[in-house]
């Protein structure tokens, strides 16, 4: 149990030699599209920069973002497996930049388990305690307690090769929790499991969190995991933090276009639209449909002194409604999801997804059917065309 502070953390992978730098530059000049995830500078490749985060004691923080965004690198810097190129890492009030991993009192669960194959489950879990010269009875007590929590007591004498993927991941978690670390780090621990097992293990982690009550830092690329597990979510892209907030905050008030598109499933619908300011009122105009923004949004826009301008409008599929009037669109695909139908429609060349609850469905939708959709002023997100930022913040 400890607080963790990351102050302006930076990670740069230096070039191995001048030659590599030249090669990289040349390569990137030839292929500019590959530059998206890498910040190529004279120092080297910058993986993480300006990363500042205050993690409270016992908080569950999830770092989420696409591949190459720097989330795992950040976690590995906290673990001590990567050197910190700049900034300060403070765990429980102590600067940990140059402290060895074993002295940071952290535990880590790896994506691919990383169990010691020649040891039994018991030995795997007891290894770290043995190295700390813990008394035998104490080790036995702690290992059995962790095994009981994770429901792996019956496998204690087995070797990892005799376990299934889910059981191995439980052992990996068990190995981490026996030490009761100050901070528990998890690097995509569920991404090697199949969908069903992943859901089960996700629930297990939520339960585990209640039982062991420590500070968690969890890395994932899966926004569902991030939303369900985290007290707060850190959304990253190209080494930069895009937004930090509770799941509800990042879902309801995305800071920019990237966060809006990354969080939420199915992804948010985006349109080229106009923001009109008429006195102290704001309207969104889309294909003839004019929707007034609600009071809260209006107040925020007024505070930022936003004027009329072309915008990117974002509306989530669950907030897009089929209506008699509104924006016309043609049905492309209708996906039956059980309790609802995901309707893919073509609105003036844009693919738009509308979630229609089964109870609200009056008829089946077929390919080519003309429908109209609309949305309310309290769920419309307005993003600047120039900066991609949410104009409300």
């Amino acid at each position: 149990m400890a607080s963790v502070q990351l102050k302006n953390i930076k990670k740069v992978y230096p070039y191995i030699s001048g030659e590599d730098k030249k090669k990289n530059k040349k390569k990137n000049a030839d292929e500019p599209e590959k530059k998206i995830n890498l910040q190529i500078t004279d120092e080297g490749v910058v993986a993480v920069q300006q990363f500042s985060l205050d993690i409270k004691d016992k908080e569950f923080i999830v770092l989420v973002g696409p591949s190459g965004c720097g989330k795992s690198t950040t976690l590995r810097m906290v673990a001590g497996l990567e050197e910190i190129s700049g900034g300060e890492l403070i765990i429980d009030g102590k600067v940990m930049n140059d402290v060895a991993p074993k002295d940071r009192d952290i535990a880590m669960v790896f994506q691919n388990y990383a169990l010691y194959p020649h040891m039994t489950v018991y030995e795997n879990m007891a290894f770290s305690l043995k190295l700390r010269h813990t008394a035998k009875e104490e080790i036995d007590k702690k290992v059995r307690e962790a095994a009981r929590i994770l429901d792996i007591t019956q496998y204690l004498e087995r070797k990892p090769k005799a376990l299934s993927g889910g059981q191995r991941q439980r052992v990996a978690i068990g190995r981490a929790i026996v030490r009761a670390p100050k901070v528990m780090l998890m690097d995509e621990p569920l991404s090697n499991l199949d969908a069903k097992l992943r859901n089960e293990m996700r629930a297990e982690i939520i339960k585990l969190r209640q039982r062991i009550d420590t500070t968690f830092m969890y890395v994932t690329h899966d926004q569902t995991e991030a939303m369900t597990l985290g007290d707060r979510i850190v959304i990253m892209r190209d080494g930069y933090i895009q937004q930090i907030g509770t799941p509800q905050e990042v879902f309801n008030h995305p800071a920019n276009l990237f966060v809006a598109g990354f969080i939420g499933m199915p992804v948010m619908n985006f349109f080229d639209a106009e923001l009109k300011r008429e006195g102290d009122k704001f309207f969104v105009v889309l294909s003839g449909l004019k929707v007034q923004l609600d009071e809260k949004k209006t107040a925020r826009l007024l505070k930022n002194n936003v004027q009329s301008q072309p915008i990117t409008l974002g509306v989530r599929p669950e907030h897009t409604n089929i209506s008699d009037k509104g924006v016309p669109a043609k049905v492309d695909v209708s996906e039956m999801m059980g309790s609802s139908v995901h309707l893919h429609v073509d609105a003036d060349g844009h693919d738009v997804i509308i979630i229609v609850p089964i109870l609200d469905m009056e008829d089946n939708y077929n390919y080519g059917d003309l429908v109209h959709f609309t949305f309310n002023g309290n769920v419309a997100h307005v993003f600047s065309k120039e900066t991609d930022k949410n104009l409300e913040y």
Partner: protein
Amino acid sequence: MKTKKRSEFSKLPSGDKTLLIIAYAILGLFLVAIILPIIYIILASFIDPVTLQNSGLTFDFSKWTLTAYERVLGNSQIWVGFKNALIYSILFTIISVVVTLLAAYPMSRADFKGRGFFNTIFVITMFFGGGLIPTYLLISNLGMLDTIWAILIPGAFSVWNMIIARTYYMGIPRDLQEAAEIDGATEMVYFFQILLPVCTPIIATIAMWQFVGMWNSYFDAMIYLNSASKQPLQLVLRAILIQSQPEPGMVSDMQSTAARAQLAELLKYATIIISSLPLMIMYPFFQKYFDNGIMAGAVKG
């Protein structure tokens, strides 16, 4: 079982079937080429040399004899050679495996500064050797002539084996080391308690190569060892064979010359059997360490 195999074979496309048949035929030829001489040598070592020379292999047991084995095993020097060979082979294997595994570890680590330099130094020795006379002078100046160290030390470190061990280490997932590091393991703990136990296949391979190499070698011993009491088995067997050869120029006693020639032939087969037997016995014990599944379950494969 047979029907299952047949049905699996019948499922293969015709091209694969042909390839499989050719592969089996070639492997079969190799097998025959290896097995037949062994069988011949085993049988020949028991057959009276005159019969073997005149009519070849026979299963008429009245023509069989244990003369060669009596002669070879009756030689007290053989047992001294056996003991020496065993001591040299075991010690050489231990020293060689320890030195090789320890040298390979830093060479497998990307964060080892100077890795490229050491690698170059190592590889140079693979292309350029000192030559026999300079090496002899070196051993002599080091005061190792006619000592066990002249046999054990010079060949103990093999760059080739080091490269093989290094490559094997590099194949062990890095996560395993990082997990150990977080668990609180030092480099030494990681090396001895995590890395080496998962490297048993490569350790067994190197150990076997080195053991067999030392067991079969006689040249270094011939050059550096003078005392009869220090000679290994191969050198003793070589001496027995040479002593039994008819000496050129000794044509006066034709009968004796022929007898010596026949005995030499018989001894040749018996010595091959005697010197190979320990290795043949040893191999099955090593077999269990060649376990490919050692890393199973460590990481998601």
